[in-house]
């Protein structure tokens, strides 16, 4: 190996693209470490507090693309206060000061200020791609800065962010000279947009492949946009409300005929179900369909639509599709790999329209199914066992029974055996979310069989510490463990603290761990940050070690305690 000049090795390393593989390569020897780090362009940081921007810059001078994740996953469900952390500004500031030629920034669950966006837009001449997922803290003014200053912008992709919408003018900030857009997604914005500016922008973007509109874009604008961009591959429809006998409807039909490349369809933030026939022609070619924002589509109309989708690989839908509708999916979508069924009435009186029956039907009809997110009214062990037999290829299996401790309604038993069958059969399972009535037994199965498991979400389950211990001892590849409302205490937490260094993070809320237990972990493992999130300020006057901790989040880090935590976060 010493005989190869560096350039040859570098060339070879160019073919190694996965983060894991590149990380492994860098560990082989000093010279490989050096070559790898100088040639690395893409870096993924799963927890922004595990490393500092300065160390990132020092190690990877050739950095072009950075992915950062901030808040823990349970922040999605209001379990983490908004100002807990995950601020991107320090990263952008450090990168701006350095010589890094940043071209792409991808952020998830981070706090992004307008100031950050402005600094970003002015600091990197070749900046091309901004992807923000589940972020917050910015307004459309920040977007205006990006539009105005990033001369070679190719991608602006906003997914499910909380944006303060100052209405509309940001789109006009794209200069006439900007013709490089490939992807534009502003579906999550709630305000008006300048429709004329949008039309002009699309007209001068010949490479535009992905366009996702917000609710404020009406149908006649959509029709005009499609006429100008028949090359689109991914379309997100904003508002789909119109009169089926109108001029616009006819024009839309014509425009759709020209769009032969659309493979992915989403949006329908407002929809008139009787007008779907105009877009039937594209359903036959779709590989991804997201109707999860369209509660107005259900019953026979929805089923008729699904029957066109023979090539579908990923389907995101609301539970008003019903078991019957899932039966239609099972008959039609033989290529289906991923299914997500969301609740249309999550806080409602138990009128959820899918049960274990729908899932069994899909598992029987769609043998390629490998990824599931399923919100349902109930589940049985028998159904889970059948699903496990039909689909041994699950990589992601997330089941959410709306009543979190509901047993099998037929046998009144816990769902241990059902989930046990899933982990035993699906040898490649990487992500699992449990719900329903569950005892320690299910965790015994998980520890025994889920050898590839990387992420596990547990809520309202188990009888004792044994449950958590089975998982920590058994799942060698575990990276993220998030637990809420389970009877796990200090004994489980402290059994093997070294394990947490092999993981990205552990979240425990409303469990039985005490302040003393958490302190003990922090003492024994200086490489972990152990955070206590104490919003009610119970800990302020009473630092009794025996006190139970409401929310604990611990994660491995190379840079010690963070300095930006709010007052109610205690870092031990």
């Amino acid at each position, binding site marked *: 190996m010493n005989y190869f000049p560096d350039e040859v090795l570098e060339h070879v390393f160019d073919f190694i693209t996965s983060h894991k593989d590149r990380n492994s390569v860098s560990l082989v020897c000093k010279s490989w470490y050096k070559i790898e780090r100088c040639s690395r362009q893409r870096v993924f940081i799963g927890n922004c507090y595990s490393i500092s921007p300065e160390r990132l810059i020092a190690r990877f001078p050739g950095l072009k693309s950075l992915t950062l994740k901030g808040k823990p996953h349970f922040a999605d469900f209001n*379990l983490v206060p908004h100002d807990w952390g995950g601020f991107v500004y320090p990263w952008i500031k450090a990168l701006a000061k350095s010589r890094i030629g940043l071209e792409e920034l991808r952020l998830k669950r981070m706090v992004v200020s307008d100031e950050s966006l402005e600094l970003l837009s002015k600091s990197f001449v070749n900046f091309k791609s901004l992807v923000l997922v*589940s972020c917050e803290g910015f307004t459309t003014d920040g977007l205006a800065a990006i539009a105005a200053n990033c001369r070679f912008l190719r991608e602006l992709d906003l997914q499910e962010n909380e944006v303060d919408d100052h209405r509309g003018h940001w789109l006009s900030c794209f200069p006439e000279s900007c013709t490089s857009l490939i992807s534009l997604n502003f579906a999550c914005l709630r305000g008006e947009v300048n429709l004329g500016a949008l039309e002009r922008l699309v007209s001068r973007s010949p490479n535009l492949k992905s366009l996702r509109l917000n609710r404020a874009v009406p149908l006649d604008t959509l029709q005009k946009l499609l006429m100008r961009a028949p090359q689109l591959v991914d379309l997100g429809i904003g508002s789909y409300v119109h009169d089926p006998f109108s001029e616009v409807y006819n024009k839309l039909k014509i425009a759709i005929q020209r769009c032969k490349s659309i493979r992915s369809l989403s949006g329908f933030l407002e929809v008139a179900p009787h007008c779907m026939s105009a877009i039937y022609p594209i359903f036959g070619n779709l590989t991804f369909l997201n109707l999860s924002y369209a509660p107005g589509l259900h019953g026979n109309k929805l089923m008729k639509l699904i029957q066109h989708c023979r090539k579908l690989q990923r389907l995101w839908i609301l539970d008003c599709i019903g078991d019957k509708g899932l039966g239609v999916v099972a008959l039609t979508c033989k290529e289906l790999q991923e299914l997500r069924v969301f609740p249309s009435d999550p806080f409602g009186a138990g*009128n959820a329209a899918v049960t274990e029956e729908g899932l069994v039907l899909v598992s029987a009809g769609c043998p390629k199914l490998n990824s599931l997110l399923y919100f349902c009214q109930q589940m049985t062990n028998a159904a889970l066992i059948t699903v496990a037999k039909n689909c041994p290829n699950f990589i992601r299996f997330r089941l959410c029974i709306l009543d979190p401790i509901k047993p099998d309604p037929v046998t009144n038993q816990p769902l241990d055996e059902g989930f046990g069958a899933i982990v035993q059969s699906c040898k490649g399972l990487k992500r699992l979310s449990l719900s329903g009535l569950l005892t320690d037994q299910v965790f015994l199965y998980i520890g025994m069989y889920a050898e590839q498991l990387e992420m596990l979400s547990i809520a309202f389950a188990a009888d004792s510490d044994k449950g958590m211990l089975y998982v920590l001892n058994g799942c060698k590849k575990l990276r993220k463990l998030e637990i809420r409302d389970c009877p796990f205490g200090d004994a489980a937490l402290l059994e093997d603290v070294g394990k947490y260094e092999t993981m990205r993070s552990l979240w425990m809320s409303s469990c039985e761990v005490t302040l003393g237990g958490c302190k003990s972990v922090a003492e024994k493992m200086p490489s972990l940050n152990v955070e206590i999130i104490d919003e009610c300020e119970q800990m302020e006057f009473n630092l009794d070690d025996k006190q139970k901790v409401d*929310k604990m989040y611990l994660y491995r880090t190379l840079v010690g305690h963070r300095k930006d935590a709010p007052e109610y976060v205690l870092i031990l």
Partner: protein
Amino acid sequence: MSSENGKRLLETDAGGLNFEATELTLGLPGEPRVTSDGGAKLGSKRGFSETVDLKLGDNNQEVKLGHSLQEAAKSPVSKTQVVGWPPVRGFARRGKKSCKYVKVAVDGAPYLRKVDLEIYNSYQQLLTSLEDMFSCFTIRNYLNEKKIDQVNGIEYMPTYEDKDGDWMLVGDVPWQMFVESCKRLRLMKSSEAVGLGLKTAPKYSSTN
């Protein structure tokens, strides 16, 4: 019927229905999603009758909800009281339209209010919010007084006009269905409702 009798009626019924059997203990919670008294009761979910205690009209009289509302809303309420469950992203307001403002009239009040039904997830939240809205109104009648004396209760029945123009009792149908069909709300004085036979016989909805 005086508030004294009304209150006693409810307590007996509450005992008879054995709410305790339906209470689930969840371990240490964070703050529950909805509270009408601002406090979190640790360790257990609260029954509906404890949580909602409307105070409308003059002198902070207690308003008792129609009994059928308690029954119908019992199970959905327990779901809404757990923070972060079901694990649906707050952002993803699937199933919601932009907003739905309806007028709210209270018998005896000189002006109406408007509420956006879309911001609530349950009957409990709506009625709690109405309580805040109208207790403010009555407080202002007694200019400098912060404290309101409890006098005889005037009972109010929450009713609404639906798409067909009929006046319905709030609480019989699932929440989402109510939101879609409600055109306006009226808190009707029970003295008017007596003739309709709504208050007397407790209704047990067949779908609990």
